[in-house]
């Protein structure tokens, strides 16, 4: 007769042996998943914390069409832009506004409709008031990141941004290059032609810049380009 008790013990040992690898794999997978999750989360938080930048010189760069936006909170902060921007508009083309790459959870940037010349930014409740001093920190590292992103995406918005950055840094050769690339990607961006022409002037190719602008104006009737053309011709822009 079979020894059932012994056989049951053997069966129990067999089941433990049978499930042990499955259990081990499950536990290992679980641990690995948790570790990976924690690492990813850690990376995400560390990459978001260092750079807090939102555009403050809004008044200077925001076009008058920017609208006011209300956030679901009570405290309001009014930023009074400098009126100088109207004058600047004569010289500087419509600025390129780039959304910040990383949003800090507590800081919200808003650009919307503005009553004549005011921008209202409403902050969340807990940010109990204090004027926000928003600074834009542009490092060459940031620019390299954007160039890298542009190489991956070929987005004309990015190349225009890069062109403008180089122009601001007085690297006119690179500004010219990126403006040219932008024009090739999308020939209908006004700003790109402006940066392109201004870079040409700065590189000493005034005649060529005039020629480019004239052809562009002929095609698009761009008023900004017109203003720049007259400034170049009159020697106001050099």
């Amino acid at each position, binding site marked *: 007769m*079979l020894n*059932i008790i012994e056989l049951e013990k*053997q*069966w129990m040992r067999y*089941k433990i042996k049978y499930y042990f690898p499955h259990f081990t794999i499950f536990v290992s997978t679980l641990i690995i998943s948790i570790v990976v999750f924690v690492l990813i989360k850690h990376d995400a938080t560390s990459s978001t914390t260092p750079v807090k930048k939102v555009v403050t010189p809004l008044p200077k760069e925001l076009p008058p069409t920017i609208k006011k936006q209300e956030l679901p909170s009570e405290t309001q902060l009014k930023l009074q832009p400098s009126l100088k921007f109207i004058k600047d508009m004569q010289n500087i083309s419509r600025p390129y506004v780039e959304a910040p790459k990383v949003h800090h959870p507590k800081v919200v940037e808003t650009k919307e409709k503005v009553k004549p010349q005011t921008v209202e930014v409403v902050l969340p409740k807990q940010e109990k008031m204090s004027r926000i001093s928003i600074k834009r920190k542009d490092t060459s590292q940031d620019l390299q990141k954007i160039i890298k992103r542009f190489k991956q995406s070929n987005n004309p918005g990015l190349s225009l941004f890069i062109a403008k950055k180089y122009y601001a840094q007085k690297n006119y050769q690179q500004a010219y290059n990126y403006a040219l690339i932008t024009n090739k990607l999308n020939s209908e961006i006004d700003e790109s032609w402006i940066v392109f022409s201004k870079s040409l002037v700065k590189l000493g190719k005034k005649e060529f810049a005039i020629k480019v602008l004239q052809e562009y104006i002929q095609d698009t009737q761009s008023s900004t380009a017109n203003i720049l053309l007259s400034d170049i011709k009159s020697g106001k822009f050099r």
Partner: protein
Amino acid sequence: MDSSIYNTSKNVFLDTVNANDYVQLDRVSTIYQSLKDSINKPLKMILLYGKPGTGKSMFLTKLHKDISTSKVVHLYSTPILDESEFYKTLAQDIFNTKYHGELNFTQFMKIVNATKLDSIPIVLLDEAQLYSDALMEKIRLLSDTRTVKFVITLHKTEKEDLIAKEHFQTRIWETIELENALSGELKIYIQKKLMKANCFDTASMFVDKNINLIYKLTSGNYRDTNKLLYTLFDLYSIYEQNHRLSSFKINAISNKLIEMSALHTGLIHA
């Protein structure tokens, strides 16, 4: 459920070779029919091969039973390893010649040539891998005379060795391979076997989950399946005697008991 049903079911799976226990499965029936057809062809030798437990002996037994009424057929389930004894047995069974003392191949061939038979007798040799190479050579020579037709069974590996010998390649006119059952065939095999013995209750207890486990454990090998199920019903009987059967479902076979049977029969190890 009748208390003796497990014992009855257990005995169904006793590992015996009995033509009455032959279970007809579609694929197996086709192979069997082709074997029977081969017997009627002018072949010198038919080779039936397969892994152990695939039903070769059962095939020979069944064939012997089926054709013995219409043909002269002799089945040797146990190999006669002594050459002289082998010839003497054939001389007596086929040629009705009783020989005393040692009988060698030359003397045996004299008997073969001296005797006129109405029809070609068929000799069924099971477990032919146990015969010596020398004796297999003599069997080959005997088949060449066309006075005796041989059906031999042997394990697959042995067959491969045998086939490798050129002289056999030309003489083995028909080779039939037997294989393990597939999962679906195994279910039919188990249920048909039980139903043949009127064990309808236990037959209906085998659900797909059980069959899959049995198939996994035995790979569809008939002998292993018989051993496993014999032990399984033995376990059921013991649990029943100990009044511990209530811990198992009554409408399905317990996989735990199948695994315990597999442990006992050595199909798995703890």
